Each structure stands twice: as C-alpha cells, then as structure tokens.
C-alpha cells in the first residue's frame, strides 16, 4: 500500500516503513540505543529527503524510547538520578554541538565530517566493545569470575553522589562530562547518541549493563524531544505521517526487544551491539573508499 507523505512529498510503501520501524524498535529495546544511526541511512536509501529523515527520525525515537523506558521502569532498571545528571550534561553538549556544527557548515565539507565522525566513533566503540565482550564470554566459559574495573581517578574526584540503582558512589563530574561529550557528538552527527552513551556508561562509569539500557533510553527521550521541536519550528521538516508509520512498528518492536534483552546475558548483548555497530561502520567506510556508481548528487538550492 503506497502512502504519500505530506512533508517529504514522496510516495512510499506503508508496510516497508512499518517493518523498518519494527526492526529498529527491537534493537532499541534490546540495547538502549535510539536506533537513529541505523534508521537515518535506511530512510535516505528509500528516498526520503535527508532533512526530513533526520527530523522525523528524532520524533520516532521519542516514541520507541518512551515505550522501552516504561518496560524498564517496571523492572526498576532506570537510574533516574544518573539519567538526570547525564541529561543536564547532554543538553549543554547539544547546545555546544549545534554551535560547532554551524561553524563547520560555514567552512564547508560538513557532510564529510559527519561521515568521518561516524566511521571513527563507530569503529572505535564497536571494536572496543567487541574485544571486551569476547573476553568476558571466554572468561565465563572458563569459569573465571568476571572482574569489574575500578577507575581510581574517578573515585578521587569531589562532589560525590550516591547512585543507588547503579550501585555507585562516584563524583558527578564524570557522568556530566560523558553527557556533554555525547551531546556534542549527537548534535554533530544528528542522532540521539545512545550508541556512544551506552558504552561510555558501561566502561567509563562502570554501571551495570542492565541499568545502562533503561537509563540511556530515559535521557534519549528528552534529547530527541528537544531535537524534534527544534526541527519542527525552524526547518518544518518533521513528517508526522512518516513518523506515525515508523513509530507504530517501533513501539511494538521496542517491547519485543526489551523482552529479548532481559533474557540474554550482558556479554551477549554487548557483543551483538558491537557487531551491529561495526557493520554500520564498515558500510560507511566502504562508501567512502569505493568509487560510487553515481558521482553526482542533487540537493535543494541554497543549502550547502
């Protein structure tokens, strides 16, 4: 069934969008990532104009994250206090990121920067997670007890705060810094930042994987809601018809994903996320290295 999208001004298959929303929703519920880094390229591929894809994607992530976070609230796997600290940092970072983005835009080549950002960060994060979780799986097979890394410098910092759900008593500075850093990258790369946030929470802050997913979703809701409003009021590029089709699949997928996620071991969850991140990184990397079949691309006038 073809549906004409009022803002994007293209006609697309409704079932295709429902399916895409569902798959990305499952991943979102399982890993606590918004799924923007997967969905946005997919939407480009089916012919949605990039500006509309990025804006509408933010709106869809609000829905799937909300659906996912409710499931996590019931299991009490959301660290509200940590989420709030990260969110404050994230909003500060997003503001800074938009500023950097506009500066780079005036210098040209912002497209390339975004792509390189993707390849570099996805590669580093994916690679690190893959190696770490592979080792963890090997260790559990051998029967060795998994060792938790303790970051000495993190415990020496002032402004300590107790994060009961995460079982941490650390300074607020590291989570705040993580929030700012993720916020900057998220604004430049046009995604919620879950795929950077999740590993940062696990490896830098030492939070338990089960709590990380819910907490990440919690703060993604606010960041993407903010982004949606920004796009809707300044660029008029949020396509509500597209969002509804994606989010119907997305919210159902997120519920399924959460169920799958709770039945899996933390290492398995991490290794799957790592493989997925590496796959997207590989695809983007190849796009940069291989000669494209069409050297020319079209854009709307005026914009660079």
């Amino acid at each position, binding site marked *: *069934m*073809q*549906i*004409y999208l*009022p*803002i994007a*001004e*293209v*006609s697309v298959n409704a079932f295709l969008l429902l399916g895409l929303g569902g798959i990305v929703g499952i991943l979102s519920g399982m890993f606590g990532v918004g799924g923007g880094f997967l969905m946005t390229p997919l939407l480009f591929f089916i*012919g949605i104009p990039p500006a509309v894809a990025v804006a509408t994607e933010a*709106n*869809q992530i*609000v*829905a*799937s*994250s*909300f*659906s*996912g976070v*409710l*499931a996590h609230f*019931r299991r009490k796997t959301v660290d509200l206090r940590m989420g709030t600290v990260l969110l404050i940092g994230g909003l500060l970072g997003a503001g800074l990121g938009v500023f950097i983005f506009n500066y780079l835009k005036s210098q040209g*080549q912002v*497209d*390339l920067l975004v792509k390189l950002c993707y390849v570099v960060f996805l590669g580093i994060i994916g690679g690190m997670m893959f190696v770490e979780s592979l080792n963890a799986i090997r260790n559990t097979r051998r029967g060795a007890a998994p060792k938790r890394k303790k970051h000495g410098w993190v415990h020496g910092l002032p402004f300590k705060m107790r994060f009961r759900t995460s079982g941490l008593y650390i300074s607020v500075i590291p989570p705040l810094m993580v929030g700012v850093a993720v916020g900057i990258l998220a604004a430049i790369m046009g995604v919620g930042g879950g795929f950077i946030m999740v590993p940062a929470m696990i490896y830098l802050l030492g939070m338990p994987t089960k709590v990380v997913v819910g907490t990440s979703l919690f703060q993604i809701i606010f960041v993407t*809601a903010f982004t*949606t*409003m920004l*796009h*809707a*009021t300044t660029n*008029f590029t*949020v396509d*509500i*018809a597209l*969002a*509804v089709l994606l*989010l*119907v699949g997305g*919210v*159902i997928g*997120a*519920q399924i994903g959460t169920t799958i996620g709770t039945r899996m071991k933390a290492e398995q969850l991490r290794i799957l996320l790592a493989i997925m991140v590496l796959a997207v990184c590989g695809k983007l990397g190849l*796009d*940069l*290295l*291989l*000669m*494209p079949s*069409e*050297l*020319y*691309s*079209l*854009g*709307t*006038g*005026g*914009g*660079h």
Partner: protein
Amino acid sequence: MFRFILTLCLLAMPLQAEEVVLGLSSDKVAITATFEGSDILIFGAVKRETAISEIPLDVIITVAGPSVPVTVRRKDRRFGIWVNTEVVELDAAPSFYAVATTGPFDEVMSNTEDLRHRVSIGRAIRSVGAATMAEDAGRFTEALIRIRRDKDAYQVREGAVAIDEQTLFRTSISLPANLTEGAYETRIFLTREGRVVSEFDTTIDVRKVGLERWLYSLSREKPMIYGLMSLAIAIAAGWMASAAFQALRRG
C-alpha cells in the same frame, strides 16, 4: 478598403491561421494520502480558417512542474576517500518535466525554436551562472537530467502524440507518485518543418487535499502546535504499546 486591411492582417499573422482548441481529462490533480500517481489525457483539435497545408503538421506537448534552484555536487577522490568537491548551483530546474511529440524531436522542432521557447529538457533548465562555477558545468546539468530521468521525473516521449487528419491530436502524460505541489504549466506547440506555427498555454493544478493539506498547512502556519502534536502522538503510541504488552503478558 476594409476587406483589403483584413487580408493584410491575415497575411501578417500567419501564426494565427491555425489555433489549438484544447481538452484535458482533468485540470486538477488532487494528492491524497494514498496518491499513486495520475495519468492525464491531453487532447485537442486544430482550428483553421484555411485549407489544410501540404506540409504535415507536428504537435509538441510539454508539462512542467514548478521550477526551483538545484545544487548539483560531484564527488572526487581525495586522500583515498570519495568526497564532494565541486558544486554547481542551477538557477531553476522544473521538479517534473515531460515532453511528448509526434516524431523525433530534431525533426519536429528546430534548434532556434527550441532555444526561443525552451522546449527540450536541457533548455528548460536555466543555468545562467553555472559556467563560472565549474569548467565543465554542462556535465552537471547532464547529471541532473540523468538522475531525474531514472526517477521518471523527466520524460521524453518521442512519437507519443497521435495526430489524425492533421487536426485531432492526443497524448497521455503519466505523473509519478512523487509529485510536488504547484501549477504545472502545460504547453502545446504546433510546428511545420521545425518552425512553430501556433502555441497554446494552460495549467494543471496539483494540490494536496484533505488530511495531507491540513497537516502541511499546520506544519507551516503553527509549527509549535504541530511539533507538540508530533510529540504527543509519539508519547501516546509508546505508552499504548507498553500497556498493551503488559496486558498481554498478564492475560
């Protein structure tokens, strides 16, 4: 004396000797939520006061969507990776363009007439300043045409116009599903030996209707409300799915 002036006038205006009387299967295209493209039948007759000429008459029909500036970028290899290097801004290119003729384009219209009336796709795209932006600006225009032809946004259909007795003509133009809103300028040229003997203009109105219209207007006129509505829908959908799954698990 009066008759003499009239004769003079008729001689002075050979263009008006044959005129187009046009019909359209519809002069409005409504874009609804389930719009899948639309076929428009364009038909007409040649009205003439004089006898039919020995030289055969040709008909060229063009339909053009609204023109907007387009940026065309070209990738090149730099430091081992493919990046956008050159950019050419074309002043105005129609979002949709179809040309239908009674025969091969070169035979039904001369180059000078094409230049004057901007009929072929290449001429319909305006690119005044393009030559200063890149050495081979022409290749950027070619790329635009190639990309849009692949999407059926630009169509050249030689021989698609049927003509009977040098008087009745008809063709059908298929508008694709990915249509933008606006007034679609429809032109009909009557030619003899490549020269234009008569020209006729009309417009086909392409508009979003119903829900599509309402959403589009709301997003432009009250973006704040539109944005909040989008968020409300997202939150409601997320909550409903969560509640439904919980009920499923319990039930």
